[in-house]
């Protein structure tokens, strides 16, 4: 028989690899980042060591020269996250409703085909799209010019078009996931609701807006909010397609498709401004924590059901 002490401690043995790696790779970097945020750590102090500077970095972000970057980028981060979720969800729902037609015998085949963008690594797809969006030679402008006889669109050079291009690629990459979620949600809607609606004289349109849509929204809302929080930091596409650009006028080389997270990333990777990057991460943390807490409040996700 094993002693009660071993018995009490053994669960932690199972947990230890995860706890050690999370401590080492999530918790400590986070704490060190917080520390860096209150110092002047940068390329200049890398060799000599850094000093405590108090709130100077936060003052710089909110009212110094960095504020000219911070607030516009913050605005775009919110718009980008909202549009990403809304476009992906509407497209996913639209396709799911079409595919869910019981008279469509070959629906499994269509599902398998439409899910393919999900299977392609997003980074490689983003690079491919960069070529396809090329202004003078890319496939997209070629097709548009050939079929619609319009002028070539400066997709990756002009701020608004670059933003549209990034959102299009995000939509292409993301709608299969939302489609899968919505198909699951559609299966969960009780058939009786439609029968009841039919008795009340509802037509196809009413049935969609009064039964399908609200039920699906209820099922998908937690996923949509976490998808919003995810997109808040999801700068992979923009980084690979246009490197966050085209660049804004001004310091810090932040671009029009940069998100707060990618500005912080570039501060570290390109400029070695560990101090400002750390401070930005703290601000970002509070923003995303706020969204996630809101999500848990609204939806009761992660509630233990035992």
């Amino acid at each position, binding site marked *: 028989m094993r002693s009660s002490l071993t018995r009490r401690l053994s669960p932690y043995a199972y947990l230890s690899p995860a706890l050690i790696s999370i401590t080492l790779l999530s918790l400590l970097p986070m704490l060190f980042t917080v520390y*860096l945020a209150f110092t002047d750590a940068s390329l200049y102090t890398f060799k000599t060591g850094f000093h405590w500077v108090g709130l100077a970095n936060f003052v710089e972000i909110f009212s110094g020269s960095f504020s000219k970057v911070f607030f516009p980028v913050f605005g775009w981060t919110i718009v980008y996250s909202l549009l990403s979720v809304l476009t992906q969800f509407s497209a996913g729902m639209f396709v799911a409703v079409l595919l869910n037609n019981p008279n*469509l015998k070959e629906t499994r085949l269509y599902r398998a085909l439409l899910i*393919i963008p999900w299977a392609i*690594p997003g980074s490689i797809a983003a*690079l491919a799209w960069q070529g396809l969006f090329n202004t003078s030679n890319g496939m997209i402008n070629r097709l548009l010019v050939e079929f619609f006889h319009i002028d070539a669109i400066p997709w990756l050079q002009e701020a608004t078009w670059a933003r549209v291009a990034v959102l299009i690629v995000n939509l292409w990459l993301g709608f299969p996931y939302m489609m899968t979620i919505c198909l699951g949600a559609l299966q969960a809607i009780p058939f009786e609701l439609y029968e009841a609606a039919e008795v009340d004289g509802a037509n196809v349109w009413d*049935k969609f807006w009064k039964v399908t849509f609200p039920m699906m929204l209820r099922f998908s809302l937690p996923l949509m909010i976490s998808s919003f929080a995810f997109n808040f930091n999801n700068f992979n596409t923009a980084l690979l397609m246009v490197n966050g650009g085209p660049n804004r006028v001004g310091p810090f080389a932040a671009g029009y498709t940069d998100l707060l997270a990618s500005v912080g990333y570039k501060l570290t990777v390109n400029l070695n401004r560990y101090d400002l990057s750390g401070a930005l991460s703290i601000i970002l943390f509070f923003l995303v924590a706020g969204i*996630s807490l809101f999500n848990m409040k609204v939806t009761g996700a*992660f509630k233990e059901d035992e």
Partner: protein
Amino acid sequence: MARRKATGGKLRRFEIIEVWITRLIIWALIVVTFIPILSIVTASLQTGDVFYSGSLLPDPARFTLNNYKLLLTTTKFPIWIRNTVLMGFAVGILQVGITVLSSFAFSRLRFKGRTNGIRALLLLQMMPNYVSIAAIQYVLFKLNMGNLWGLLLVLTGASAYNIWLIKGYMDGLPKELDEAARVDGCTDWQVFYKVILPLARPMLAVMFLMTFVGIFNEYIMSRALLKSPNDMLLAQGLQTFSTQFSVKWGQFAAATVLSCVPLAIIWGFSQKYVESGLTRGAVKG
């Protein structure tokens, strides 16, 4: 729209029209979704100037495998693929191992902090770890680990989300099996090794696969940490092509095809498990 039972008899006229409209819209959507893919596959199989002509359908007269040959012999693509596959296996196996042990503890063992532990871990990892990039790069560069070993270390960090997902799956396995095994004198470890692990195998395979594909996607961390072109993973390596797309578009397309087709096929075969795994883990019921 509703899950009507497919009527045994003939469809009503209205239903026939409805199903054909649906079909046409879906065909159009599939075409739009596949135009980029088709264009890449075509470019990879034709002589260099497809990037310029914008032609979508392959032109048999210009068929060539030259792009593939150049890609495999004159670029670092084979090295990047090797790095990526090795890294994928290493991270995948380590991740699955770390995750499955913790999930078992959270699902089957009693200990202090069980209920709140996983929630705390999920909260902690709400932020992707590249947000701590300042600290990670600072420390790894100080330690002179701006290489594949440093990257392996960073990517191996356990994922609370995966732990939660696998725990959900394990919660769905009948507890009677454990009890029966314990009556036969099995210890915790034997219950884990002989009962739970074999049953969780399909779900673990899905997790391995997702981690593996994730490494093909890895760009953010490697760009921040790796310096030598010989260390690069696939995405970062291919990114170096993009500055000279006009000359290397064909080769880039070939690289995309070579790396994505095997993944898409594996993904296609495992889709059923991915879907059921995601929903079973996420929506307990």
